[in-house]
């Protein structure tokens, strides 16, 4: 069963005459780790602010946990945890006190959750140190702790790796994966560090200039980014036969336009071309293709710029 945690329908936010986001339709299912990719100013934070209720949509609807009644959104937000932009912390309080404020305002019974959360985010030894004396990484961890304190079903993280050192980034990634695996936590995470998102997310939404350009699963993305030889010959069915019989491979696809995508022999292009020409085929095109997430993203937004 597909249980949707978040669905947006033609969601738009306009500041004066400019759209910060325009007609965004995002669908996040239970258990997804949804990576929202976009450049700075693409509209990622605006979208997250709308979902968390910090800002109000100009048009469109937000459906959280299957409920799209705007009056019920506040109630649904009780099941969420979020960090938007930077962690919001009381700098004159220590980590424990910050979590206590969050515990009280969320109405969480018992104080055990505070100790557990401090341990979870690696701040159990922070002691009485005030937040104003924390490093950026510690603040980020505490922000994550605030978001996780109520054991949410849906976690929203806006650029959570900002300020984290490489080890901190790895720990955060592992923590999110663990919570997703063990508790079924659904995560919406925005970032412009694409390599980081690539290792974490199960689904991606690519946003550019306020518009959602593409929504795809990590499998689909891998497929699109997969390294391959792109072959165009005068007779594609004969070409496929040559690959099967004489190069003993079935690891290829024949596309609708007759192009063949061959996923092996990447380092042996000469063998492929010789086999094809030896059997009388005329090679019209032969190139090595495939993208990293970065180049795929660049191509995608570059394409829009030219439109």
């Amino acid at each position, binding site marked *: 069963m597909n249980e949707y945690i978040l669905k947006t329908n033609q969601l738009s936010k306009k500041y004066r005459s400019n759209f910060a986001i325009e007609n965004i339709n995002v669908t996040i299912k239970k258990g997804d780790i949804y990576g929202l990719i976009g450049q700075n100013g693409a509209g990622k934070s605006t979208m997250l602010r709308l979902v968390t209720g*910090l800002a109000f949509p100009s048009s469109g609807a937000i459906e959280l946990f299957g409920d799209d009644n705007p009056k019920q959104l506040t109630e649904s937000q*009780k099941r969420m945890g979020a960090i938007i932009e930077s962690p919001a912390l*009381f700098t004159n309080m220590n980590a424990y006190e910050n979590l206590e*404020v*969050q515990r*009280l*305002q969320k109405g969480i019974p018992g104080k055990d959750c505070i100790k557990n959360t401090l341990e979870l985010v690696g701040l159990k030894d922070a002691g009485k140190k005030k937040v104003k004396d924390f490093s950026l990484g510690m603040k980020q961890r505490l922000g994550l702790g605030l978001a996780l304190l109520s054991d949410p079903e849906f976690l929203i993280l806006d650029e959570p790796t900002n300020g984290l050192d490489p080890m901190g980034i790895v720990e955060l990634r592992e923590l999110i994966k663990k919570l997703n695996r063990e508790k079924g936590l659904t995560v919406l995470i925005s970032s412009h560090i694409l390599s980081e998102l690539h290792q974490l997310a199960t689904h991606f939404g690519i946003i550019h200039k306020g518009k959602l350009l593409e929504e795809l699963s990590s499998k689909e993305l891998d497929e699109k980014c997969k390294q391959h030889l792109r072959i165009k010959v005068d007779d594609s069915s004969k070409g496929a036969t040559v690959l099967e019989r004489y190069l003993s491979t079935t690891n290829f696809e024949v596309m609708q336009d007759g192009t063949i995508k061959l996923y092996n022999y990447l380092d042996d292009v000469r063998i492929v071309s010789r086999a094809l020409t030896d059997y009388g085929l005329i090679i019209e095109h032969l190139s090595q293709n495939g993208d990293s997430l970065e180049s795929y993203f660049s191509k995608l937004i570059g394409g829009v710029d030219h439109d």
Partner: protein
Amino acid sequence: MINLMKTEMYKLIRNKTFWVLIVSFTGLSVLLHCLILTDWWFMSGTEFDEAGLSELNALSPFKTLLFFNLIVSTLAGYYISTEFSQSNVIKNQMMSGNKRTTILMSKYLTFSFGSWIVVIMIPLATALIVVHLLGFGDIFTLATIIYLGRAYSLFILHFLSFTAIVLLIAIVTEDSGKTIIFTLLLSIMMFVIEKFSTLPFINKMYEHTFFYQLNEAFKVSITSGEMIKSILIGIVSLGIVMLCGIFIINRKEIK
């Protein structure tokens, strides 16, 4: 609401400005009362004089709008406004799944409680203690106690409207400095209208505001009609300001 009240109290108790105000105003209040009671300083023509409570003259500055607005606005600036600006912790509260109206109400009640402690409770409590310690306890008769009870009850009612307005200024400006300046400007404007306005219409309007009623609360003789009018002005003002507050908070976008 109870959870949010607990949260606000937790934050208020840990607010440095609140404690600085408490300590400084306790000291100031004790000093003023001692100076008055030992005749080092002389004040006359106050409502307390008329009520036969000249030993409590040192309370007069604390019930003057031009003086106490500084205390209330400072607390608003460093307790309310900073949540919207420097630390932006208001985000956590807005995302906590609590209704914005409830958040506003809990902030208002706690902020008013904090202001009440500094502006009303501390001066009054120190007055009672110093007066008793210096041997003037006999000034408290049934009549003077009734006067103080009535005057402070009305004063608190109108004070609650004032704290509601300052809370709104703090939320709208999102800056401690601006909160203090705008509150001071408002107080100066009311002072100018009260003292210098010659336009009957403006004067009539002003008399129907809680600003005017803050002073009227301490009148020695007050008719039942005047008291009912004062109570009505207090309740209506508070209602209007809070409705404005609810309107604003429900449309406010958090950065």
